[in-house]
């Protein structure tokens, strides 16, 4: 019984992944059920919306039916029908403008925020220097920065990228600080015991341990960047999906407003998936540790 090999066999059963098998359903049928569940709710909303709008319960222009919006969105993108009027075919320009601002703001805000957050977590001196300022400023809503940023930068890309980056900055700071602080004491001791010097400790122990939290911060930063790009494009710059949405609102083109909203929602979702994809590539081990892995 004392043989290491006998131990291994018992342990192998423990370590094998547990498949929960659902009875009476093939894999194809299960996938179909899942798909139906995914589309059931949005499908029902669209159908009811279509019926209410077509039946004439209210004026079509206030809340156009999904089919009208689909046509307008098609024309916004391709410009071949003329349904979107003066906005026809302008989608890709606005989208590229918004995407560029989101990624520029995310890059400086998320990058600088992560760096500062790690330093605050690592050094008591940096913490004393910057943490009180961060804690106060993060309670100022980013929208409150709009007047000052317009005065400093004027109308254009600069205030937009400034505001988006500012929004992305704070979640990155807080989460990367947390990532450093939550390092397991035993792992720190183990690193010291193995003989790790300070730089080895940082690179091989502290930073890998902080990475899940850093990625959580960056995911929140990306979400906030999409909120703020719309705010910035309504108030500080004359292009982008937020501008399109606001301009169409001024001209009572609610179909274009909703098409813009839909575009922002889908692009925001895709950007979130990119961050999640990168995170899952970097953190395969972390999925194993957590419940939903």
């Amino acid at each position, binding site marked *: *019984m*004392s043989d*290491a*090999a006998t*131990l*291994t066999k018992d*342990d*192998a059963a*423990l*370590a094998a992944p547990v498949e929960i098998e659902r009875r009476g359903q093939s894999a194809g049928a299960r996938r179909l059920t899942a798909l139906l569940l995914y589309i059931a709710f949005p499908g029902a909303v669209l159908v009811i919306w279509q019926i209410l709008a077509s039946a004439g319960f209210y004026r079509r222009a206030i809340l156009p039916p999904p089919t009208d919006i689909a046509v307008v969105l098609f024309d916004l993108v391709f410009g071949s029908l003329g349904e979107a009027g003066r906005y026809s075919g302008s989608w890709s320009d606005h989208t590229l403008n918004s995407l560029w601002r989101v990624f520029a703001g995310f890059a400086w805000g998320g990058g600088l925020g992560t760096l500062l957050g790690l330093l605050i977590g690592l050094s008591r001196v940096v913490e004393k220097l910057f943490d009180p300022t961060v804690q106060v400023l993060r309670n100022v809503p980013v929208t409150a920065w709009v007047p000052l940023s317009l005065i400093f930068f004027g109308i254009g890309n600069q205030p937009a990228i400034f505001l988006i980056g500012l929004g992305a900055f704070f979640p990155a700071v807080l989460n990367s600080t947390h990532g450093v602080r939550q390092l397991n004491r*035993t*792992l720190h*001791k*183990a690193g*010291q*015991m*193995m*003989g*790790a*010097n300070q730089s*080895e400790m940082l690179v*091989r*122990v502290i930073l*890998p*341990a902080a*990475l899940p939290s850093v990625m959580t911060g960056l995911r929140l930063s990306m979400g906030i960047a999409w909120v703020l790009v719309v705010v910035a494009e309504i108030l500080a710059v004359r292009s982008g999906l937020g501008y399109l949405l606001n301009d169409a609102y001024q001209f009572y083109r609610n179909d274009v407003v909703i098409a813009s909203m839909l575009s922002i929602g889908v692009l925001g979702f895709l950007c979130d998936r990119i961050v999640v994809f990168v995170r899952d590539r970097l*953190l*395969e*081990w*972390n999925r*194993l*540790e957590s419940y939903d892995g």
Partner: protein
Amino acid sequence: MAEVALDKVGKVFESRSGRVNALSAVDLRVARNEFVAIVGASGCGKSTLLNLVAGFEHPTGGTVRVDGKLVERPGPDRGVVFQQSALFPWLTVRRNIAFGLGLAANRSRTLKGPSVDQILKRVGLAAFANHFPAQLSGGMRQRAAIAGVLVIDPGVLLMDEPFGALDALTRSLMQDFLLELWEENRKTVLLVTHDINEAVYLADRLVIMAGHPGRVREIVPVDLPRPRRYALQAEPEFIRLRDHVTRIVRDEAAKAAATEAAGVESAAA
């Protein structure tokens, strides 16, 4: 292989709630390749003693030496196996075991320990080399942690309740496994445990500690033949020794409880 020497070691913890005399005038010598187990009720300072030898804590009195050298900080000459296996969750089993070898401090040492592949086989984890710690059972994790310490070839092995978090059956198997490893390749071992059965089974000598303040109450040699196997635990000699030690530890625990109660009363008065 090294020897450990503690001379009049004291450790006082100061905090806002007051001073705690964790260790007082502890003298202890552990010879080269000797297996010493430290037992005692909780709060008697046995983990503190181990932390001092490991270099995680500094004594407030006396000296701790390993091979004549004053202990100042943790280092790879004193390998530690923790109760909660200290595996890095982001590294595979193989990379965890190889962690120490990649550090500058160990590249400059001459290591006579086993290679990563040898030790993976020896601890029965060759098939799990590319698994992450989260995919292992408690016993496997602890074997991986022991393997990671053995490859950096420490002169002293310090173990702080290494099997305390395992179920009774796995713990018993791990004791046999450790015994075999040690009999194959002897090292100086200092094992802290609250499991008296485990201490008698594994050690050459038992250090029984008493609390308030933490001190060495008695040192009991274990004159049981080696190599030892599981059946030994049913021998009258083993049982007699275990009961003897249990009685001392229980007496001390009862005294400590009485002191604490009296302390509370006098504080109230």
